[in-house]
């Protein structure tokens, strides 16, 4: 087995023909940051990741409390890759919590977008095999019980909370919240502490995180968790969460994907909006490192044009750190790493590590110092066995449609809390509907899609856009509102617009787009006051299903990143939507788009009403357990 001669060169060549070792598209996204790491040669651009780790060390050693670092590099040089390296090392070594912020939904409301991102990031598994929320909650529990001197691990606590009934858990959470807040005067908002503690309970963490992400709760759930319906100002909540973290752990916040063409209503680009936010964040966090990555031109042309105070806060450590392109050594190392994995998986041993490439040809690539992405692209296009003299019918390597590849990359990204981002979802729907102008779908001939929904042509925070056209020869105007709020007030506001009683929007019918998950059930009151009348007047409740919105979000993402990351034109993307509609549920083949356009059913859904029997039952129980019982519960044996 040790001799490489054992494997015939034919076996290896066949394997290379059957599977391209470089098939994985060379794009690093949030999935690679959070989940399986992209193959990493740690020596490449170690200077940049080391700067971040060094800052964490210095903060830990109390040399200073907070800092910010900017890394600039051209597209494809490894910015996100570097963030992925930082995240994976932190996860392996512990010590610091990690936040990754790349999407903010509405740029006019970045604080809310960041709150959602924060909640989402902390819901990822950290160093202790539980979520980062749970790590934080465990730190709070241990602090509250410090007189009892026995340290409880986050895992033990999650287990303990999992087997307690609601009544006990509730008393426990309230008890811990009270003593923690008594001991820590800096914990200004007990509700935030309470919500974080609820994340230890698997059956409540979904609601608690919803609340922490700013999404609000239904009245019923709010009383169950002893929380107000809404967490209040987004930035205040963010500040307090980060403050709590600062007491127990170091914190790394990474801002990525700033190089997009998006801008807010006042004309600031995404990078500029984020920079302004980073400044505020920097001034308000207790402890931590803020890392911002972008292209050099964005730094010079967008950030440096902002007030000096902003620039200084975005890169407190001085000039941005540059990433390096690949040189001969690192290219050889990279290719070896990829191929090693490939041959190992197939139990093959090639005659030399870089087979089918020669080291000489790999080193030649370094003449122009390419970014890592271009090297991987080259490898993918050229990774085939050497052509032999015989007239072998080597299948020409199928060149993937670049749009398809980009689309698949985006489709592979997890949605997480983005599925609660009304703005982001509506933006994707709007974009995809625009591609249907001129088509007739579900009897509706679409003439115009507009987000200027009011009669005066203004936008609205709840009613996202209108579809204007004709249906069976008659004019029709469908108002669409994505309302993923759990909380009653925002939901009610949205409903009012859809019903459009005062005819502010000139709608012929309103269409509510909303998930039917457990945390999105609506109260009896909302059901009777709004939903029933809406449906009976010809409006619709269209269920938002993750698998149906996913392709729409993915193609919208490709469109947003078309210039910088994917190098595509709008025309290519639009053509792809037309060509691949059936394959990928795009355009006329997307069931969600079709459902929004389809004839109203006049059927009021009955599976969306909240079951409040638990609440009623629980409130009749007397609260008898005393604190000793509760804390004893936590004294679990190892």
């Amino acid at each position, binding site marked *: 087995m040790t001799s490489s001669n054992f494997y015939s060169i034919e076996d290896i060549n066949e394997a290379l023909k059957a599977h391209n070792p470089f098939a994985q598209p060379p794009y690093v996204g949030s999935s690679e940051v959070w989940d399986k790491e992209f193959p990493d040669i740690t020596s490449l651009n170690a200077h940049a990741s080391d700067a971040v780790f060094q800052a964490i060390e210095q903060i830990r050693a109390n040399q200073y409390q907070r800092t910010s670092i900017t890394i600039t590099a051209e597209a494809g040089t490894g910015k996100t890759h570097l963030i992925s390296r930082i995240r994976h090392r932190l996860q392996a070594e512990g010590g610091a919590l990690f936040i990754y912020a790349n999407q903010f939904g509405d740029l006019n409301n970045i604080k809310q977008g960041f709150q959602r991102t924060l909640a989402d990031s902390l819901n990822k598994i950290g160093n202790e095999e539980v979520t980062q929320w749970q790590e934080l909650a465990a730190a709070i529990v241990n602090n509250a019980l410090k007189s009892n001197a026995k340290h409880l691990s986050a895992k033990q606590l999650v287990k303990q909370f999992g087997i307690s009934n609601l009544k006990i858990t509730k008393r426990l959470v309230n008890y811990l919240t009270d003593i923690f807040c008594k001991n820590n005067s800096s914990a200004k908002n007990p509700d935030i502490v309470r919500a974080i503690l609820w994340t230890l309970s698997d059956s409540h963490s979904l609601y608690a995180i919803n609340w922490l992400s700013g999404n609000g709760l239904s009245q019923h759930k709010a009383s169950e968790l002893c929380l107000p319906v809404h967490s209040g100002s987004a930035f205040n909540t963010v500040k307090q969460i980060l403050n709590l973290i600062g007491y127990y752990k170091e914190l790394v916040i990474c801002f990525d994907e700033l190089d997009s063409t998006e801008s807010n209503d006042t004309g600031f680009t995404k990078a500029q909006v984020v920079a302004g936010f980073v400044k505020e964040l920097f001034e308000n966090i207790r402890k931590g490192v803020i890392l911002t990555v972008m*292209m*050099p031109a964005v730094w010079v042309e967008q950030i440096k044009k902002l007030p000096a105070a902003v620039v200084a806060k975005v890169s407190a450590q001085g000039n941005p750190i*540059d990433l390096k392109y690949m040189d001969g050594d690192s290219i050889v190392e990279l290719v070896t790493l990829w191929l090693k994995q490939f041959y190992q998986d197939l139990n093959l041993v090639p005659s030399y590590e870089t087979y089918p490439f020669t080291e000489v040809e790999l080193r030649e690539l370094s003449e*122009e110092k390419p970014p890592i992405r271009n090297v991987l692209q080259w490898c993918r296009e050229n990774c085939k066995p050497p052509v032999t003299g015989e007239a072998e019918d080597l299948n020409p390597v199928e060149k993937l449609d670049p749009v398809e590849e980009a689309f698949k990359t985006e489709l592979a990204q997890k949605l997480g809390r983005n599925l609660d981002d009304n703005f982001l979802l509506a933006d994707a729907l709007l974009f995809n509907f625009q591609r249907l102008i001129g088509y007739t779908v579900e009897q509706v001939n679409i003439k115009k899609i507009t987000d200027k929904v009011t009669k005066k042509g203004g936008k609205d925070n709840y009613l996202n856009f209108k579809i204007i056209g004709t249906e069976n020869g008659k004019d029709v105007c469908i108002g669409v509102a994505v309302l993923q709020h759990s909380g009653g007030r925002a939901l009610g506001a949205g409903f009012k617009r859809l019903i459009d009683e005062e005819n502010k929007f000139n709608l012929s019918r309103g269409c509510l787009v909303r998930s039917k998950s457990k945390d999105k059930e609506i109260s009896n009151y909302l059901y009777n006051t709004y939903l029933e009348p809406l449906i009976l007047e010809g409006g619709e409740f269209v269920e938002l299903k993750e698998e149906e919105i996913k392709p729409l979000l993915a193609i919208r993402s490709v469109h947003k990143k078309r210039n910088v990351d994917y190098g595509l034109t709008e025309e290519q993307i639009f053509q792809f939507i037309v060509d691949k509609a059936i394959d990928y549920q795009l355009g006329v083949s997307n069931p969600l788009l079709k459902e929004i356009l389809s004839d109203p059913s006049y059927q009021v859904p009955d599976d969306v009403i909240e079951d409040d029997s638990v609440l009623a039952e629980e409130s009749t129980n007397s609260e008898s357990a005393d604190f000793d019982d509760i804390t004893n519960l936590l004294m679990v044996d190892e």
Partner: protein
Amino acid sequence: MSAKNTLPENKINQAKTRLLLALFVAEEPVMRGKLNEKVVPSKEKRKDYQSVFDELLEIGAIEKSDKGYYLVPSVGLKLLDESLKNRDFENNTIGTWVANGLLKRIRENESKTNDFNQLDNQTQIEESSNEAIASYELFKDITLEVYEELNRNYNLDNLVPIYRIRKEIGEKVSREKFNQWMLEMQKKDVFQLIGGEMTDITPQKAEDSITTKLSGLRYYAKRIA
């Protein structure tokens, strides 16, 4: 009929031009006797044209050897070209040799740049400008100087568009050499050549940037060492 040295200046000048042209055509030393046939008009005295030879010898446009007179190119050719432009050089009758000599001079001028004849023959310019920046080391020094100057004067924040550097360096180096040496500078970690967001790109600017095989267009240079 007329006294010595009473020839009008224009006649002397014409004679000088004919002498220079004759030596230019000959491309080798020519004996005085042969030259007199071209310099001294028929029916005129050789002696009257002695000053033509003396003066050209004195300013170093021609030299005299055993085998006869010959042209000193550096001074002689320049003087010839200037004299040809002078209105003095007009004649009613032009000998075949004069016409041929002029043609020869025109053709030569066309294939070579010189101070007063601006020709826009691209390849020739490059050929001769190569001599201006002949080595990578020199190119590097000049380019860094240009880079620093642009960076400073235009507040470019270490992100200097390549097309502007190319413009500054101008024709002192061929386009090909410019690309090659800029990549060399990148390879040696002096510059990083960067693509990315190019807000003001035009086809002309793209053409004047650098395109690489794997990574496409590089628009800015950034100094890293």
